[in-house]
């Protein structure tokens, strides 16, 4: 039935001149054609389609058969396959490339979720053929095709483990390899162009977009549901010798140099943004910072395409370039981003020699922001291994600064971190630096003598005087006391290398006395509380189930927390008193040392 209809419409249209077919003609052709193909009469359809008499009809209407053809081809039924393939091949050659492109991309977009990979792999070659027919105006069509294809491929689950990658159950790896083959002729064509980016040549721009999207989801170019292909942890050659994803990554980065982008220029882009370039906004779109950051990560942490990066740049310069990206990663909250930031920072730092980063670097914005972000990770991030790593990397960075830079850094951190734990850690570092400086022939002007004092003043102070909450500032106070005790023991009064003995009276007035007062007040207060609580609990025991009046209640996640039992309260108070005892013992020891030294 359908076959007859098809033959009829085709016969009728043969007589029509100048392609003046009616909408009904199109409609009948499409519906009849589809039915024939679906019913397995593809051989007959083929003969109609290749018939010279029907040349014009097919040229205008043929592309409408793409839908049913693709569906049949996806089913892979033996008998229909060769004919359908032949029809497809013919259509690809005679129909308008623009219409074919639309039809094919429609098929890609409408692919059934279970057959995304199959559809993509089937249609890549036809798409390539069609695009190559577009000649010099192909760039935006190539871009559109890439965007549609990637949009679908990105929906496939990305293999996380080595086994998953080998098995490639969802065919993501196959798709990636096929994509590389697809894109090759366009890359070759783009290679020929000599004008510097990001000027005119649109094909190179589209390819650059492809790379950027593969390495990292840039908000403006991809729908939010995508998971960038190269965000996954790539397996190194020791883990998986032949890793399709790693190969894909290497090839994708290879496209960059093929289109004339130099890796060093790209990476230093954020650092050395040439503001005089007109159309500055274009630049930002062409080289989105997130993509550059991911690129830096792939290069320096995963070592993808690292052998194409010139072994000529100084490690300090590389660190400077990467700081921008590290800062970007560390400003985020997602675990994967923070991990990348920490890894990139670590890898950039290990290339640099200890004690070599000069103080001028401290003036750069990124060298201020990164530590601030690092502190946020260390103190606020809910993920423990990231907090631990954050601290490790912080220490690594401190080790790389030269002496003056360390000094400035410690000052800055003490002023800005507002966290007792961090301050305590920094103070410990200061102690280590002083210790180092006191070693024979290791002296320096920053951790001894005149410069040391402003720093010590920052360390040996109570932010709210005697009213400072000693429990909250425990870490800081203990480290400060340890430092002071260390100085008084290590630096003999007659040598006074650090100058501590000359300044001691000031320290006593500004620090030790208020601390002593604060300690006494705190102890008295807590001892009173302790007594109160003991008395209250005695009363409650006497009156059995009398609920205690609590000062405030605590609700966590919509659940009201039970009141602390008297035993718990006592425990807390004892613990506080114990802490004060600890502080007091160090303080007493310090006072002892001072007394002994001051005796004639």
């Amino acid at each position, binding site marked *: 039935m359908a076959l007859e209809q098809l033959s009829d419409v085709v016969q009728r249209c043969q007589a029509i001149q100048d392609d003046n077919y009616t909408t009904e003609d199109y409609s009948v052709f499409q519906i009849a054609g589809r039915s024939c193909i679906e019913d397995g009469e593809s051989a007959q359809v083929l003969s109609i389609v290749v018939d010279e008499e029907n040349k014009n009809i097919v040229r205008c209407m043929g592309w409408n058969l793409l839908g049913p053809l693709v569906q049949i081809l996806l089913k892979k039924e033996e008998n229909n396959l060769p004919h359908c393939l032949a029809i497809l091949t013919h259509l690809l050659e005679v129909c308008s490339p623009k219409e074919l492109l639309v039809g094919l991309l429609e098929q890609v977009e409408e692919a059934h979720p279970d057959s995304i990979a199959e559809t993509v792999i089937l249609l890549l070659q036809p798409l390539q053929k069609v695009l190559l027919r577009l000649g010099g105006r192909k760039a935006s069509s190539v871009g559109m095709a890439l965007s549609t294809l990637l949009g679908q491929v990105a929906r496939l689950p990305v293999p996380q483990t080595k086994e998953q990658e080998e098995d490639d159950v969802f065919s993501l790896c196959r798709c990636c390899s096929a994509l590389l083959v697809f894109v090759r002729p366009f890359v070759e064509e783009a*290679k020929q162009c000599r004008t510097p980016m990001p000027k005119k040549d649109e094909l190179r721009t589209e390819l650059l977009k492809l790379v950027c999207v593969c390495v990292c989801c840039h908000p403006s170019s991809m729908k939010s549901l995508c998971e960038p292909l190269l965000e996954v942890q790539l397996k190194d050659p020791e883990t998986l010798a032949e890793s399709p994803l790693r190969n894909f990554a290497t090839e994708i980065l290879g496209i960059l140099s093929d289109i*004339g982008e*130099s890796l*060093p*220029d790209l990476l*230093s882009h954020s*650092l*050395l943004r040439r503001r005089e370039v007109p159309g500055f906004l274009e630049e930002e779109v062409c080289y989105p910072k997130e993509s550059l950051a991911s690129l830096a990560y792939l290069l320096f942490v995963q*070592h993808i395409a*690292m*052998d194409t990066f*010139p*072994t*000529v*740049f*100084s*490690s*300090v*310069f590389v660190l*400077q370039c990467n700081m921008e990206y590290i800062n970007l990663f560390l400003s985020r909250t997602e675990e994967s981003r923070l991990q990348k930031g920490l890894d990139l920072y670590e890898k950039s730092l*290990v*290339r*640099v*020699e200890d004690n070599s980063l*000069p103080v*001028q*670097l401290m*003036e*750069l*914005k*990124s060298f*201020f922001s990164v530590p601030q972000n690092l502190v946020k990770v260390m103190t606020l991030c809910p993920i423990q291994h990231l907090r631990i790593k954050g601290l490790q990397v912080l220490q690594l960075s401190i080790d790389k600064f030269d002496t003056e830079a360390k000094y400035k850094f410690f000052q*800055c951190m003490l*002023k800005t971190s507002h966290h007792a734990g961090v301050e305590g850690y920094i103070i410990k570092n200061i102690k280590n630096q002083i210790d180092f400086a006191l070693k024979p022939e290791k002296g320096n002007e920053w951790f001894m003598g005149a410069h040391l004092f402003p720093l010590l003043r920052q360390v040996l102070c109570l932010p709210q005087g005697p009213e400072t909450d000693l429990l909250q500032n425990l870490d800081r106070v203990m480290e400060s006391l340890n430092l002071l005790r260390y100085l008084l023991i290590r630096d003999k009064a007659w040598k006074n290398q650090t100058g501590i003995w000359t300044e001691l009276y000031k320290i006593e007035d500004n620090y030790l006395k208020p601390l002593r007062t604060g300690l006494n007040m705190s102890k008295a207060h807590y001892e009173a509380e302790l007594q109160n609580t003991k008395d209250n609990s005695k009363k409650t025991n006497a009156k059995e189930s009398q609920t205690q009046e609590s000062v405030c209640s605590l609700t966590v996640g919509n659940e009201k927390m039970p009141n602390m039992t008297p035993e718990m309260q006592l425990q807390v108070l004892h613990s506080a008193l114990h802490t004060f005892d600890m502080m007091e013992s160090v303080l007493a020891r310090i006072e002892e040392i001072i007394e002994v030294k001051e005796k004639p």
Partner: protein
Amino acid sequence: MAAELTREWSDEQLKSDDLSKKDVIKFIQDNAAHSFLAEHKLMGNIKNVAKTAKKEQLIIAYNDLFESKRFLGSEPIEDVTEHVKNVKIDDKPKEVVEVVDEGPPKFFKSVLKKGDKTNFPKKGDNVSCWYTGSLEDGTVFDTNIPATARKKKQSKPLSFKVGLGRVIRGWDEGILTMSKGETAKLEIEPEWAYGKKGLPDSKIPPNAKLIFEVELVAVD
């Protein structure tokens, strides 16, 4: 220390177009305490502030200043140092940091092909080079010279600004002694290359002396 300032402009004058944003900003910057400026986002280059602040905001800030009397000098010293530090950071950051160091040159140059002996690069000039780098034992670890002559036509030499610490010191110092067209062999001691660490995870071992054959193709 700060004398009581008097209001120069009335509300009408402030709103009028005769009074430019820059004038108001300049007045506030000259006379307000640093923390005031920080809070009202009025720090930094006047042109930039003018771009981001609306006239209404400036009028509000002006009035606020006289109400709160937070004039320059009314805040303690600590704030000033904070402001100085902040200003430094807000300023356009320096591009690259140069490391100044004393000591004898840690590289040795032998000329393989003479250059034009007139075009010598200066610090900050853009230079382009073909190069091949090898270790003392002869292993080539890097080159940007493609295998065939045809490919060389398609590739570009390495381009960078010399003398600014972006490349290893041996290169910075060595290239400054070369003239356009010169090909030289640079033997660089590890201190002016990748030092005690080398390049971890890469082809350069620790304490490696590097030998580069460099052709200076272009200067700026």
